[in-house]
């Protein structure tokens, strides 16, 4: 019993750093996130989405963290290739969702862009209200 407790505690201690949440509220997020416009040739600020960060290991699905011009997190975006969504053997499981409270969700088709060079669906978890989507609108 005691041994089992020690083992559990050891595992907990060992996994702690990985579980420690990254700071994502403000750009740049901590952890393995990289600015998308530095990974691939894309405009730094995408009208309708904002400034994106992603952990390259999670491509293409993401999460992508999207920030407004003041560096405030506005949404978490997943990019899911249409051919994968139509493939019965393909799943997207346990996608990280570090952005906190979700106000509403948009899902729409995207023709592709550097980084995800095929038609895909954007699944956007907005952390701000519908009105505040304007924070990432085209100037």
């Amino acid at each position, binding site marked *: 019993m005691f041994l089992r407790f020690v083992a559990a505690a050891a595992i907990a201690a060992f996994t702690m750093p990985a579980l420690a949440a990254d700071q994502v509220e403000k750009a740049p997020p901590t952890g393995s996130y990289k600015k998308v416009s530095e990974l691939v040739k894309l405009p730094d600020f*995408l009208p*309708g989405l904002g400034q994106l960060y992603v952990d390259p290991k999670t491509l293409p699905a993401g999460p992508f963290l999207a920030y407004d011009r003041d560096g405030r997190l506005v949404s978490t975006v997943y990019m899911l290739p249409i051919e994968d969504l139509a493939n019965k053997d393909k799943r997207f499981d346990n996608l990280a969702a570090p952005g906190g409270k979700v106000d509403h969700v948009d899902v*729409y088709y*995207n023709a*592709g862009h*550097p980084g995800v060079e095929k038609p895909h669906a954007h699944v956007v978890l907005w952390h701000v209200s519908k009105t505040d989507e304007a924070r990432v609108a085209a100037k």
Partner: protein
Amino acid sequence: MMLSRRHILGIGGVLLASPLYGRAAAQGASPQIEIRMQGNADGSQVWFDPIGIRIRPGQTIRWINLDPGNAHTSTAYHPQNDAHSLRIPERAAPWNSDYLLPQESFSVTFTLEGIYDYFCLPHEHAGMVGRIVVGQPSGPPAKGVASPAQPGTEPIPEAAVRAFPSVDEIMQRGIVRRT
């Protein structure tokens, strides 16, 4: 910011704009012909405008990215470009603009008569392709876009196959815009 890159076609292809220009100003007043890379606000649609065009040998085409939210390329169908099938004249050199950010442009001067098909690297699967007819191409017509892939090359995605304007339409109308 207005970056511009010019591409010189090698064998068969050729010349930087220069004197041929004046003589070859066929399409309206502008000696240089522009093809716009465009997309709608949410990125669900992307296209070349015009999608089909007829020019005279020696004319230059300049692609410019007018899509504020995306990068595009003008890339010839050629085995050297990502193992794509050969869809430009055999003696012409292939081109690839690489990714153009908003307002960036890229030019190619065409001297060899024939049919030139090209695509956008990240958007070929979304049907972002274009066709240029230079002069009066003679000989057998270009291989049908729907024909099986040439050995060792990628098949053309269905959306791209559907998007190409026909050579006949380009010959008749000179400029074909997306419908």
